């Protein structure tokens, strides 16, 4: 090493060596600037090759010999591939990506993919300075670009496509992942102890599938409550209250989801087919258990101290219901769970229908139901009850369009409590409690006024096809002839024939029904109205 001194410049000379005998292969680990990676902060790191592609190249070895195998299968397969000219690239270990785990389980993870073409036209060398001042140059054999791996759950490609298609409709984006997680759970385990999942947000999510189906307000309501939970508990998973509610909701949610499937003929169609395989353990009997549940729930609801946000209270109500579930014990839990889920599903159904801007018949019918009940007991504060659900759903996103429901939520809740009281006062025959329950549900998931009217309208209509005008006389005729649900009624007065919009139909029908004050009967688990004159 020689040095020349000079006043303004100094030059140093170093010998450059290229060691020949080293076995070490030098590689570059490149991180993106935005990832802010500082290697000196790493306490501990593990890196291994990512062998997940191996099965693509070395074909999966099916069971060798004995059951299921054919004689000469391998040769046949090979001959077949040669015939078609299928050439599989061999699996080279040194080309596989690296998986780098920094700082153990809780730290970051990176995937390092080999960058091709690095050594083709120019060579990279690493110059390090040795203690004796000389430089040593080592050739770089491979360059790996390391990208951080997301630790949070992401959507798969199919799910992402679905969501993309709904991007204009879905307002609450937080619910998307929640739904997905819950769906996974639903699919994954039927036997798993619900309590295990309770603490996790996923469980809370109840029916995430709902978001992806064209459907119900109820689903949305449930989700929104869930979301409000999550929004209340900031990151949604840490707050104990959220967990508790999650636990309850999870159980209820799970049941709700199942129950929803069983009720699907009464409610919106389930497009996904998610519910096909669901166990519907409470299909058979609802009525008695239904009675008890709503009553217990409603008093609780009345007593709830609002959390200060509508959603919060909404979710509390639901969690109260969940509490009910737990208190009853496991045996009854199913039944009650059924009730609650029914309620909540209906709520959700309504919520979701509120959220999805399309108004479909079932939406209309559902709302007609609730609107009807609402009308019967309280002045139609349809927006209110709905609003609580709606606001809960949208609470986490204050800028969302359904803000108008928030204003009515208090009134709707008031309506709901009045409903409960009213219900409590009247000795509820079994046929009444389902209506009461539905009233509650109606009040809760009530969407803005117009929608509730639709729901009311849909509930009961007697089938008489010839009637085109939506008049009290017509409805009366129908109801005298035969008991009908709101849904049936709505079907009778189709928008094309009456010339009214669906909202108007619902509104008008609700009013008519209020005036008529028909008798109620629970047939096949559905609320039917009828008149006897």
């Amino acid at each position: 090493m020689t040095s020349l001194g000079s006043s303004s410049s100094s030059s140093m000379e170093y010998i450059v060596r290229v060691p020949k005998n080293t076995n070490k292969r030098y590689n570059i680990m490149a991180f993106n600037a935005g990832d802010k990676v500082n290697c000196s902060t790493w306490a501990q790191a593990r890196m291994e090759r990512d062998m997940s592609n191996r099965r693509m190249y070395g074909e999966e070895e099916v069971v060798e010999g004995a059951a299921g195998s054919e004689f000469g299968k391998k040769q046949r397969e090979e001959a077949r591939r040669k015939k078609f000219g299928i050439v599989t690239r061999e699996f080279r270990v040194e080309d596989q990506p690296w998986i780098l785990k920094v700082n153990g389980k809780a730290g970051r993870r990176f995937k390092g993919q080999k960058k091709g073409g690095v050594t083709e036209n120019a060579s990279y060398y690493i110059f390090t300075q040795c203690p004796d001042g000389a430089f040593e140059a080592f050739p770089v054999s491979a360059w790996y670009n390391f990208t951080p791996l997301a630790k949070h759950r992401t959507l798969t490609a199919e799910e992402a496509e679905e969501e993309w298609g709904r991007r204009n409709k879905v307002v609450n984006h937080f619910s998307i992942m929640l739904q997905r997680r819950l769906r996974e759970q639903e699919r994954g385990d039927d036997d798993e102890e619900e309590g295990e999942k309770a603490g996790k947000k996923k469980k809370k999510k109840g029916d995430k599938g709902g978001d992806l189906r064209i459907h119900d307000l109820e689903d949305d309501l449930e989700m929104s409550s869930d979301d409000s939970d999550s929004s209340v508990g900031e990151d949604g998973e840490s707050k104990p209250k959220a967990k508790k509610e999650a636990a309850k909701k999870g159980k209820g949610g799970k049941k709700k989801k199942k129950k929803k499937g069983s009720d699907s003929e009464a409610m919106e169609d389930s497009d996904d087919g998610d519910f096909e395989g669901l166990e519907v353990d409470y299909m058979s009997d609802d009525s008695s258990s239904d009675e008890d549940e709503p009553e217990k729930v409603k008093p609780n609801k009345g007593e709830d101290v609002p959390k200060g946000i509508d959603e919060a209270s909404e979710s509390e109500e639901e969690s109260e219901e969940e509490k009910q579930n737990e208190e009853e014990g496991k045996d009854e839990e199913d039944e009650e769970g059924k009730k609650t889920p029914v309620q909540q599903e209906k709520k959700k159904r309504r919520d979701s229908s509120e959220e999805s801007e399309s108004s479909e018949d079932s939406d209309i019918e559902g709302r007609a139901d609730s609107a009807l009940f609402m009308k019967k007991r309280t002045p139609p504060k349809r927006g209110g009850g709905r609003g609580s659900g709606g606001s809960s759903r949208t609470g986490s996103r204050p800028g969302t369009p359904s803000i108008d429901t928030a204003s009515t939520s208090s009134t709707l809740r008031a309506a709901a409590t009045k409903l409960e009281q009213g219900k409590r006062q009247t000795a509820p025959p079994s046929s009444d409690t389902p209506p009461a329950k539905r009233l509650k549900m109606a009040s809760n998931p009530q969407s803005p006024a117009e929608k509730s009217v639709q729901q009311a309208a849909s509930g009961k209509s007697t089938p008489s096809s010839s009637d085109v005008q939506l008049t009290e006389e017509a409805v009366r005729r129908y109801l005298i002839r035969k008991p009908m649900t709101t849904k049936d009624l709505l079907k009778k007065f189709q928008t094309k024939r009456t010339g009214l919009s669906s909202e108007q139909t619902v509104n008008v029908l609700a009013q008519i029904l209020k005036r008529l004050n028909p008798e109620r009967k629970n047939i096949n688990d559905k609320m039917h109205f009828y008149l006897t004159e």
Partner: protein
Amino acid sequence: MSEKGEVDLTGAKQNTGVWLVKVPKYLSQQWAKASGRGEVGKLRIVKNQGKAEVSFTLNEELTAIDCVGEKASSVRAPRDHPFTMQTVGGQTLAVFTENPSGQSEDRSDGSAPDKLVLEGVVVQRAECRPAVSENYMQLKRLQIEESSKPVRLSQQLEKPVTTNYKPVSNHTYNVEYEKKKKEEGKRARGDKQQVLDMLFSAFEKHQYYNIKDLVDITKQPVTFLKEILHDIGIYNVKGTHKNTWELRPEYRHYQGEEKSD
């Protein structure tokens, strides 16, 4: 001894700084020819009022280029190579080495656990450029000529190729095949019990067999074999397109299937 996958982080902790230098191909080829301790040249760093100029000078003995063809050693590699210094930018570039430990290579999963060492972080990037000179131009011309030669060459032949195919009355392969067939003769029906034993042992190995394969294994005429197979086995279309024979359920006792009989 670190466990598999563990990365040695000493270099990172010490924040060892290294340079990443891009070097032209011909230069790296010359470096590969270095002898002895591997000295290839000298690096001169001149600090000129704050700016650093780095240049590399190739050792004299390494300037001889081996080139293919006639122009042996008429072209010499340039000696001076100024470095163009660049910043790393926001990117973090680390250097890690894989050291295949001396275990045997015939493990099925490839190399034995390598020792991974994080050597350091790149603090400076540089490009080694040759100083433009007549030498360099000639070298470049040579390279271009070599690379522009087509890989495949068309050549005209004067006489047609006669070595490959000659007409024969009967190909050797055919002759052998016919001889083999004659030796074997027609398949004779063996003892039924023996055939059954053969079949059972065959079905122990695989569940599904093609009739041709069974004929091959048992060396029995096809009709006889089919009779036997009708007794003990079933012929199934199976869904996958080959039609195969398998043992009847009562004769089977595969692992993983229910035991019966």
